[in-house]
C-alpha cells in the first residue's frame, strides 16, 4: 500500500545546477532574465502573469501537491510564484540561491503535464511558464546534470542515448536477425525510399530495449505494412532539449527527424509508444521551426495499433487473459486525445480492462515525464515521493482486480516502474506492443 511521503525535503545537490551556479553573478542572472522575459517571450507570458488572480484553484490538479498532503509550495501557481513572479517583481535581480531553487522547481517539481491547464478557470498554461523558467535556467547553464547530458547527446549524435551512427543500423540488423528466428522472412527495411511509413523510436529502444524494435518489426510484418526505418540520424524522435529549454537543439533534432521522413518520401511517420516525443513533434519542436502542423503526418503507436486492429490487418489469436488497467499519458491524452483509442485497443486485445480513476484527460501524471526522470538518480526519491497519489490510484485499480498496467509511453513506463517498486504495488507494467505481440496471430511463425 501507498505510504505517506512525509519525509522532509532534503537538500539535493545536483552537479549540473552547481556547475552553473558557480561563478554566476547577479548581473548575469539579470541579463539572462531580461533576455528571456523581455526579449524572447511575448504575449503568453505577459497575459498569463497579468491575468492570474492567485485563486489557487489549480492546486488540486497537481500530483506533487496532492502527494505532499496539499503542501502549498507544490501547487502549480506556487511554482510560478516562487520563480517567475519574483523574477518579474525584482526585475531579474535575484540571487544565485534563488535560481538554484528555481532550477529545482522547474526541473524536478513539475512534469509539464498540463493537468493544471484544465483546472485553471482562465486556462493559464503553467507548463509553458515552467518551460520559460527552464529556458532561463538553460541560459544560465544550471540545468540538472543528467538531463543536460541527454541534451548533449541529442546535440552530438542526434539521439537521446549517445547511440553512435553505426550502432543504430547494427542494432536494427541484430533485431532483424533475432526476429528471423521466429519469422524467417521478416525484414526491417532500412532506407527504403517511398515506403508508406517511417517507423521512428526513441534512443532508449536501441540502447536498452531492443526487444521493442523486435516486437514492432513483428507487428509491421504480420500486418503487411510497407514500412522503413532510416539508417541515418533522424531516427530518434525524442527530444529532451525541449525539456531543458535548449530550443535551438530542439529545433535541430526535430528538423532532422522530419527531413529524414521527407527524404525517405514516406507518407507518414509512425512512432513508438512514447509521449514526450509526440509533444515535441506536434506542439513544441515543429512550432519553433515554423511548421504549423507536423509537415509529414505523424501518428502515435496507439493510433497505429488501433488502425491495424480495426482494419483487421492484425488479428487477435486469443485475448490477453490477465486483467489490465490503462495509464493515460499526458502527452498523448491531454496532448492528442488518444484515450478513446487506447481503450478500444485495450478492449480489442485484453479480456478484462479495469479503469483507474481519475482517468482520460484527468489522469494523474506518472511523475516521470516532462524531463523529470531524465534529471537522473539524485532526484529519484523526490520523484517517487512526489507521486504518492499515483500509487494510491494504482493500488485502487489493483484492489478492483487489475494485475497488469498498460503504460503506452516510455517515460510513464519507467516512472511507474519506480512507483510500482517503491510502493510495492506488484503490478506488471507493459506497453500495448508487448501485449499485441503476445496475443496476435502470427501466421508463418
Amino acid at each position, binding site marked *: 500500500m501507498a505510504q505517506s511521503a512525509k519525509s522532509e525535503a532534503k537538500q539535493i545537490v545536483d552537479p549540473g545546477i552547481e556547475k552553473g551556479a558557480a561563478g554566476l553573478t547577479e548581473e548575469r542572472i539579470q541579463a539572462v532574465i531580461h533576455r528571456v522575459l523581455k526579449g*524572447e*517571450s*511575448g*504575449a*503568453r507570458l*505577459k*497575459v*498569463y502573469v*497579468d*491575468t*492570474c*488572480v*492567485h*485563486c*489557487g*484553484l489549480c*492546486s*488540486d*490538479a497537481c500530483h506533487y*501537491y496532492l502527494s505532499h498532503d*496539499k503542501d*502549498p*509550495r507544490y*501547487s502549480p*501557481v*506556487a511554482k510560478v*510564484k516562487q520563480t517567475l513572479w519574483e523574477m518579474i517583481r525584482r526585475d531579474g535581480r535575484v540571487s544565485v540561491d534563488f535560481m538554484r531553487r528555481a532550477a529545482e522547481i522547474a526541473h524536478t517539481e513539475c512534469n509539464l503535464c498540463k493537468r493544471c*491547464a*484544465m*483546472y485553471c*478557470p*482562465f*486556462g*493559464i*498554461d503553467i507548463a509553458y511558464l515552467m518551460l520559460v523558467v527552464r529556458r532561463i535556467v538553460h541560459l544560465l547553464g544550471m540545468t540538472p546534470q543528467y538531463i543536460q547530458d541527454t541534451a548533449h547527446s541529442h546535440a552530438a549524435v542526434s539521439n537521446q542515448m549517445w547511440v553512435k551512427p553505426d550502432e543504430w543500423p547494427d542494432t536494427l540488423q541484430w533485431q532483424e536477425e533475432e526476429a528471423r528466428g521466429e519469422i524467417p522472412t521478416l525484414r526491417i527495411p532500412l532506407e527504403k525510399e517511398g515506403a508508406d511509413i517511417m517507423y521512428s523510436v526513441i534512443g532508449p529502444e536501441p540502447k536498452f530495449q531492443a526487444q521493442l524494435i523486435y516486437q514492432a518489426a513483428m507487428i509491421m510484418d504480420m500486418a503487411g505494412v510497407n514500412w522503413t526505418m532510416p539508417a541515418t540520424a533522424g531516427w530518434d524522435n525524442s527530444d529532451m532539449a525541449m525539456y531543458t529549454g535548449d530550443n535551438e537543439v530542439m529545433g535541430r533534432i526535430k528538423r532532422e527527424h522530419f527531413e529524414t521522413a521527407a527524404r525517405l518520401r514516406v507518407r507518414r511517420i509512425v512512432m513508438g509508444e512514447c509521449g514526450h516525443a509526440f509533444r515535441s513533434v*506536434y*506542439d513544441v519542436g515543429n*512550432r519553433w521551426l515554423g511548421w*504549423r502542423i507536423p509537415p509529414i503526418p505523424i501518428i502515435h503507436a496507439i493510433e497505429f495499433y488501433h488502425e491495424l486492429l480495426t482494419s483487421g490487418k492484425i488479428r487477435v489469436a486469443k485475448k490477453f487473459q490477465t486483467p489490465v488497467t490503462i495509464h493515460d499519458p499526458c502527452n498523448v*491524452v*491531454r*496532448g*492528442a*486525445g488518444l*484515450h478513446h483509442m487506447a481503450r478500444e485497443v485495450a478492449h480489442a486485445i485484453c479480456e478484462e480492462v479495469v479503469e483507474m480513476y*481519475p482517468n482520460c*484527460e*484527468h489522469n494523474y501524471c506518472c511523475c516521470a515525464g516532462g524531463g523529470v526522470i531524465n534529471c537522473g538518480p539524485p532526484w529519484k526519491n523526490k520523484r517517487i515521493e512526489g507521486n504518492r497519489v499515483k500509487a494510491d490510484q494504482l493500488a485502487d485499480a489493483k484492489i478492483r482486480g487489475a494485475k497488469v498496467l498498460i503504460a503506452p509511453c516510455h517515460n510513464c513506463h519507467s516512472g511507474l516502474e519506480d512507483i510500482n517498486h517503491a510502493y510495492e504495488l506488484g503490478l506488471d507494467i507493459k506497453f500495448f506492443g508487448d501485449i499485441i505481440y503476445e496475443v496476435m496471430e502470427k501466421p508463418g511463425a
Partner: protein
Amino acid sequence: MHPIYGWVTGPLTWIAFVLFFGGLLYRLAQLLVLIRRKEPFIFSYMSFKYGLRSILHWLLPFGTVNWRLHPVMTIVTFAFHICLLAAPIFLMAHALLFEEAWGLGWPSLPDVVADGMTMVVMAGAVFFLVRRIVRPEVRFVTSTSDYLLLALVAAPFVTGFIAYHQLFAYRWMLVAHIVSGQVLLVAIPFTRLVHMLFAPLTRAYMGSEFGGVRHAVDW
C-alpha cells in the same frame, strides 16, 4: 456639495470612463501587437469553435471537473461575478443617471433586488478574504496587492450599500461611492482585474489548443 457632486459626476466620470475603455482598448491592442511581433503562431491556432466551446463549459456552474470539486467556491464565485456585473449596470439609479446625461435608457432592476445582489457581492468579497487567509494554498500565493484588489472591488459596493440605506454621512458616502467606483473602473485595465478582458481570451486560446490541436477537452 454642489461643486463636489458636479466634479465627481462630471469630469471625474469622464476621466474614469475614458481610462476604463481606453485602457481596455490599449491592453487589447498591446496584446495583439505583442502576439504579432513575438508569437504569431497564436493567431493560427485560435479557433472560434473550440474557444467558444471551452468558454461555455467554464461559464456553466459545475460544468467542469474543477467547478464540481469546489462546490462552495463555484457557487460563490458565480454569484459574486454575476452580481458584480449586473448590479451596477442594472441599478436603477445608475440607469437613471445615464438616461439623464445621454438619454440612454435601459431596463433596470428593482432596488430590492439590486440591494440583495450588493449584499451577495459583499458576502462574496468576505468569502474570498476569508478563503485567502484560511486556505494554505491560497494564502501562499497571496500578497498585499491581492487584498488591495479585493478592497478595491468591494469598496463601491460597500459605500453604495451604506449610501443607499443612508446609514450615516449620506452625502459623503455617496461621493465615496462614486469615487471608489471610478477608481475601480480605472484599475480594471491596469491591474490583475484585467482578467475581465483577458480571461475569455486565455480560456479561448487554451480551448483552441485543446480542441483543435490536442483533440482533447480542457474541462
